[in-house]
């Protein structure tokens, strides 16, 4: 049985007839070398691959700054409705009012959640939102006739921040963190010149700490004419707690695939969302959706827009999922998300093995850092070893070696969807992993041993790249 529609193909003509319709220059001479396998074989093949993956439906996935929360299934059911899946972005707007209303409404909701009312859901991911946000900063200063070439970024920031600043034509200058894990105001003062276009912060920051002086930073930036950018990767901690506007931010991106539970898909697709003050709305990318007397309409070719940052309206299926999530939870549910995320993280922090040090004290927001520095110094046990020992015990490891500010860092984010039993289970496994390594430091380099593959030779992979079969 063939999997392609030979019946239809033949009723339109043969392959020879098709080939006769093209010049030999334009013709492919051999079919792509892709094996012909039965559906049953492929089903088994891909299910076999699936068995070799860890995933959130299996267990805790405590990657710091990644917000690996459980992804409610109703979101996927909604996204799979034919009225969402089978519509084309070039259909006339009269025939896609439901989609336009959904995008417009979610934009409004995100405006309320961040306090920044003008929203574009076009960005495909967090980093894409950063790029769009930085391009808006660029457009803003060009309109003011100001040449500002620098963006200030704390040393604890995600790598995407400086990369996005560069992509928008800025140069990044690093601001130090103090011993308390918060932005060093003196260092900021020193670097906050008239050349600074924006201060790009993450709050809570990647140390899992709330930047208590954020309003001071904002007023310093404002005095200097610079914009404040919030990397919303850690927005989960702030749901029902505070918003970007109160903190003084002008621009903020939201990761729908973190805070608003759209599945990560093994690396994507995610969805961004860029929220700005009403003063900056005119720069938002094309198209924007507007509510008019005759329904929802599509505004493009807007005078001050930075232009398109990608095609169409964004990752619509994930926009549907995030909408479904917020609709399900309502304000009380969102409030519960932020507070439970903070509770779970603080509980896990309180239960962490005493040989791991918490460099910034015993309180955190939705995630926290512990360091294996003393274990490394005394017994050669690294954050890497602890991570691999956790994999061996059947759970996923925290984010390791990030942020760069703390040596031998493990960044742990349990999220609100873990139960007490799950948190206790993880804490116990972490204890076991550390104890085992203390007892067997010489075996650390051989981990992991119980995973589908053992330690992989990453050096050879990079030295002699083998990128296709």
């Amino acid at each position, binding site marked *: 049985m063939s999997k*392609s*529609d030979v019946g239809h193909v033949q009723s*339109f003509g043969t392959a020879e007839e098709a080939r006769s*319709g093209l010049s030999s220059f334009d*013709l*492919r001479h051999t079919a792509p070398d*892709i094996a012909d396998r039965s*559906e049953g074989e492929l089903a088994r093949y891909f*299910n076999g*691959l699936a068995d*070799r*993956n860890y995933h959130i439906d299996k267990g805790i996935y405590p*990657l710091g700054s990644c917000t690996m929360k459980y992804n409610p299934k109703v979101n996927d059911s*909604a996204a799979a409705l034919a*009225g*969402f*899946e089978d*519509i*084309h*972005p070039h*259909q006339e707007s009269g025939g896609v009012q439901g*989609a336009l209303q959904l995008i417009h409404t979610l934009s409004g909701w995100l405006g309320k959640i961040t306090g920044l009312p003008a929203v574009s859901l076009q960005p*495909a*991911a967090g*980093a*894409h939102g950063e790029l769009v946000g930085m*391009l808006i900063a660029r457009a803003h200063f060009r309109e003011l006739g100001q040449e500002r070439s620098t963006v200030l970024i704390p040393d604890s920031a995600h*790598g995407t921040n400086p*990369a996005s600043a*560069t992509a928008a034509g800025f140069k*990044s200058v690093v601001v130090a963190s103090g011993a308390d894990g918060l932005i060093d105001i003196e260092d900021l003062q020193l670097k906050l010149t008239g050349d600074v276009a924006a201060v790009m912060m993450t709050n809570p920051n990647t140390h899992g700490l709330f930047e*208590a002086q954020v*309003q001071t930073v904002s007023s310093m930036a404002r005095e200097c004419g610079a914009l404040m950018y919030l990397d919303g990767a850690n927005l989960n901690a702030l749901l*029902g*707690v505070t918003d970007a506007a109160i903190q003084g931010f002008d621009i903020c991106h939201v990761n729908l695939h973190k805070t608003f539970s759209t599945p990560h*898909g093994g*690396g*994507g*697709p995610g969805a961004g969302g860029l929220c700005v003050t009403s003063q900056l709305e005119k720069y938002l990318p*094309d198209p924007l959706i507007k509510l008019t007397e005759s329904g929802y309409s599509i505004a493009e070719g807007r005078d001050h827009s930075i232009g398109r*940052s*990608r095609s*169409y309206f964004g990752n619509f299926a994930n926009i549907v999922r995030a909408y479904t999530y917020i*609709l399900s939870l*309502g*304000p*009380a549910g969102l409030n519960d998300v932020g*507070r439970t995320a*903070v*509770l779970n993280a603080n509980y896990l922090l309180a239960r962490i093995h005493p040989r791991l040090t918490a460099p910034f004290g015993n309180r955190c927001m939705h995630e926290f850092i512990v360091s294996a520095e003393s274990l490394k110094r005394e017994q050669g046990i690294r954050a890497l070893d602890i991570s691999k020992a956790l994999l061996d015990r059947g759970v996923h490891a925290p984010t390791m070696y990030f942020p760069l500010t703390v040596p031998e860092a493990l960044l742990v984010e349990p999220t*609100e*969807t873990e139960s*007490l039993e799950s948190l206790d289970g993880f804490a116990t496994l972490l204890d076991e992993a550390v104890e085992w390594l203390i007892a067997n430091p010489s075996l650390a380099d051989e981990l992991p041993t119980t995973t589908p*593959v*053992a330690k992989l030779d*990453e050096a050879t*992979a990079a030295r002699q*790249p083998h*990128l*296709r079969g």
Partner: protein
Amino acid sequence: MRYTALTDPDIASMLEVIGADSIDQILLEQIPESIGIDREYELPAESSESATMRHMRDLASMNTVVPPERFFLGAGLYRNYVPALVKTVISRPEFMTSYTPYQPEVSQGTLKSIFDYQTVMSELTGMPVSNASMYDGASSLAEAVKLSIKKTGRKKVVICSATNPEYVDTVATYIAPLGGIIHSIPHTNGVTNPDDVRECTDEQTCCVVLSQPNYFGFVERAQEIAAITKAEGALSIAVVNPCTLGLLAPPGEWGADVVVGEGQPLGLPVSFGGPGFGFFLTMTEYLRDLPGRVCGMTTDAEGRDGYVLTLQAREQHIRRDRATSNICTNHQLSALAAAVYLMTLGGKGVANLSVGLFNRTRWLQARVRESENLALVFPENTSFGDVLIRGSGPGVNGFRAARAKMVSAGFEPGLEIGASFQIDDGAMLVAVNDQMTPEDIDLFVKTLDRAVGGHV
């Protein structure tokens, strides 16, 4: 509440371990009063799962869904059949709910599927190196143009004008901070004249972007244009419709340096424009300039084959402000769909897919030629997938009136593009997909013919 698991006694015992009276206390220890810790959003109250789905169905039903065999709109996104296995595989939580494979020992499923994706995309395009995916065709093209600016140190971006305008706009957005300037080569009767490329391309040119087939569905003289491009030391960037590559020469054979495009037609629904994925392939020479993730094969400590994300020093999490791109999250699950799709078809199936689409294109053209009130625009060109048509005859101009009639007859007739591309008397871009029978196409052309002619 639905997605959190803690009971009140759980919370009490946890607070005791933490040494705090309440969650609010934990927050107040960290957040200044001037900011506050209590936001009550003005949002609709929580809703049960069934009520939520009811609401979502109501919203979805406000959109007009046209079955694929009556859906003649394409312009880069196509309603091809998605084999059931594709949906089954990408719905598995192991693929759908896993993170980026940063711990490779417990992510071999994702990693091997990336490797498979890179393999089949290389086969399809004839290019040696593929990354693991980009956001979409437009941003993929923008990254390709940036690569060419970086590699050549030049800033003149030449784009053959019959390129998806969404893509061109995106390139403009991305390259503005780099000082890149777009020079558009106007089409001549729907296609790019190689002489115009020769005239426009010089020692300032970083790349020439050519769509094959182009935005109007016309097959371009790609090999000649690539040769002219390379003679000036510029990079030849190809934007391709992947569904044509079972029949059209792979761009790796006609001289493309970078091949990009939209992967949606390979096993994904149109979903109002996203997520599909962007593919990005290039020559080994530019391996270390690739944006985004790439998977490599290696061995584990016991000598077994294994897979890792590799060449990571290019990426933002390591190279930060000097990364090749700021991309982090990509479109992995969509790329997986494409891998399953292409492996389900197999090489012969891919050839059949392209043959079927090309023969449907020719079928549609033949019916248009036979019609009373329709004509092909630039009939001397070869069309593949998309066909540019116009109304012809007395009292016929454009499609505005006809469109409403087509929609009420249950068709999605296509995209009007005449004015924006300097094509006279209006034109409509119509597309075929692999779910159409001869009768479907016959009925469409007949209905459109009558609608354009003023009949119902």
